[in-house]
């Protein structure tokens, strides 16, 4: 069920209220655990208002699910953490203001790895989300609830956030389309920060057209995010069916060792499909790729240790019964409210920023980041997009990797370089291993979402997607 499908249902005589109610019925019976909070009352009230007064805007009466790290006024927002259980934001994120202005109906907040730290949605305090393609497997993460809700037909579109692959990984594992925009294209105002120099809010949908539509709504300058850039264009209008001018670069470092053979094969067939449509391709090199994971995790954990310092139970969040001295009170709240992965990352980040280690870890990682960004800029001078597998393998079993943090970090090998460089990237389904979907990652130049959307759209239309 996509955006057109919802519009058809309404056109054929169903009330918006009936459509929204049918989604809630489905979600309440679901085994996926894709949602942490449902906004049933608000959504149905809005639906009745639309039935009475008509829909407005680009997303008129279209239901949407929102990752639980994006602030929604009046709807509980937990970041998948015990420390924020019960927190109700007093204001809307910029993207939520945009969605409401364009008529979208928010049906609930989706499950996620705690504070977006994870690649499987298993670190959520509210239990893991299951992959709709195989309930024994993870949906990917950290925006696993959003991807699973879209793939499972519980909602046509959703928002996630992507710090190191958190939109593209679950899109790949669940067989839907997910986009990480260029850093600065979408305002982060109201996105609860994990690693703010890396993350962007991004759309999920069942097809490229709906992803472009959602990007049309959420992109744009916002002075309240000082890293916001005024670079938006009309993405749905760019989806013409022609890729004859597209020059594809295939970076060899993203293939080979550690990448599942079937995944490689499916992505190469995808490249061939685009070649048949008139695109050209060359193999290229991004020589500093092997340093990406280490640089990414050092930067992300350092920023996290600073960002998560605000969770002290003073202004919001968990507070334990009786206060002790200043230091003990906060240390106990944080020991009690944060899960294991969050603690691990805060500890590592604190260490990487501490006296004597700053130069060796954090500063070094920032220097390497410059080299990685340069790699992308050089490669994308002569090519218009780069194509790689999104994930090295299809969805793994729940519980399979959670005991070995480093093994789980390594799964992000093909997605984190994109966040370091700040370039945009989309994951589109390009095949299966058995019943498990495979994602193809299409990376573009800074602020050239139009070309990666057009390439993904052409691919999708010519593969029956």
């Amino acid at each position, binding site marked *: 069920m996509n955006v057109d499908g919802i519009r058809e249902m309404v056109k054929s005589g169903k009330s918006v209220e009936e459509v929204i109610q049918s989604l809630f019925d489905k979600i309440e019976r679901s085994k996926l655990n894709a949602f942490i909070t449902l906004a049933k009352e608000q959504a149905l009230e809005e639906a009745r208002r639309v039935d009475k007064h008509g829909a407005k805007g680009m997303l008129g009466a279209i239901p949407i699910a929102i990752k639980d790290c994006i602030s929604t006024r009046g709807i509980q927002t937990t970041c998948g953490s015990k420390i924020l259980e019960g927190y109700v934001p007093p204001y809307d994120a910029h993207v939520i203001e945009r969605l409401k202005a364009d008529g979208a109906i928010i049906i609930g907040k989706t499950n996620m790895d705690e504070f977006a730290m994870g690649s499987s949605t298993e670190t959520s305090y509210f239990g893991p989300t299951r992959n709709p393609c195989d309930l024994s497997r993870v949906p990917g993460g950290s925006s696993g609830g959003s991807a699973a809700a879209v793939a499972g037909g519980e909602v046509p579109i959703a928002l996630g956030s992507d710090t190191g692959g958190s939109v593209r990984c679950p899109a790949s594992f669940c067989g839907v389309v997910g986009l990480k925009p260029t850093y*600065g294209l979408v305002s982060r105002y109201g996105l609860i920060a994990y690693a703010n120099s890396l993350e962007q809010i991004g759309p999920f949908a069942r097809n490229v057209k709906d992803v472009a539509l959602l990007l049309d709504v959420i992109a744009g300058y916002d002075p309240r995010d000082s890293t916001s850039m005024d670079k938006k264009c009309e993405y749905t209008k760019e989806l013409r069916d022609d890729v004859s001018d597209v020059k594809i670069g295939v970076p060899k470092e993203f293939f080979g060792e550690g990448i599942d053979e079937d995944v490689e094969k499916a992505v190469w067939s995808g490249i061939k499909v685009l070649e048949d449509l008139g695109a050209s391709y060359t193999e290229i090199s991004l020589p500093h790729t092997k340093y990406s994971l280490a640089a990414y995790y050092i930067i992300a954990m350092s920023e996290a240790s600073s960002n998560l310092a605000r969770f002290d139970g003073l202004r919001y*969040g968990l507070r334990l019964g009786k206060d002790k001295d200043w230091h003990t009170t906060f240390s106990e709240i944080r*020991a009690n409210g944060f899960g294991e992965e969050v603690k691990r990352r805060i500890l590592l980040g604190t260490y990487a920023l501490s006296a004597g280690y700053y130069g060796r870890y954090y500063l070094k990682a920032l220097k390497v980041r410059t*080299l990685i960004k*340069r790699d992308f800029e050089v490669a994308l001078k002569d090519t218009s997009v780069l194509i790689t597998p999104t994930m090295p393998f299809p969805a793994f079993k729940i519980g399979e990797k959670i005991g070995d943090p480093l093994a789980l970090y390594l799964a992000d090998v093909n997605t984190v370089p994109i966040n370091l460089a700040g370039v945009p990237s989309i994951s589109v389904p390009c095949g299966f291993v058995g019943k498990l979907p495979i994602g193809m990652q299409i990376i573009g130049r800074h602020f050239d979402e139009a070309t990666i959307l057009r390439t993904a759209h052409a691919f999708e239309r010519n593969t029956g997607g």
Partner: protein
Amino acid sequence: MITKKDVEHIGWLARIELTEEEKEKFTKQLNSILDYFEKLDEIETDAAPMHHVFGLTNVFRDDVAKKSMSQEDALQNAPKKEKGCFKGPRIV
């Protein structure tokens, strides 16, 4: 190589109380992750550190007073409050 004592100290810096079991576990895990980070020692570079994708610095706005969030809204999530203020633990 970091020791259990180091982990204890980092926990103190980060204001996270750790159980004995956590200290043991994190010491082992943090060492294996830090070993992996040593990969960056392979590379010598004098590249400028990258703090922001487009090198943006000093984004200013006009210093104009505007209506802000109401006190009621700002306090609505506070677990402990008193006389319109957030209430923290005793300092002295």
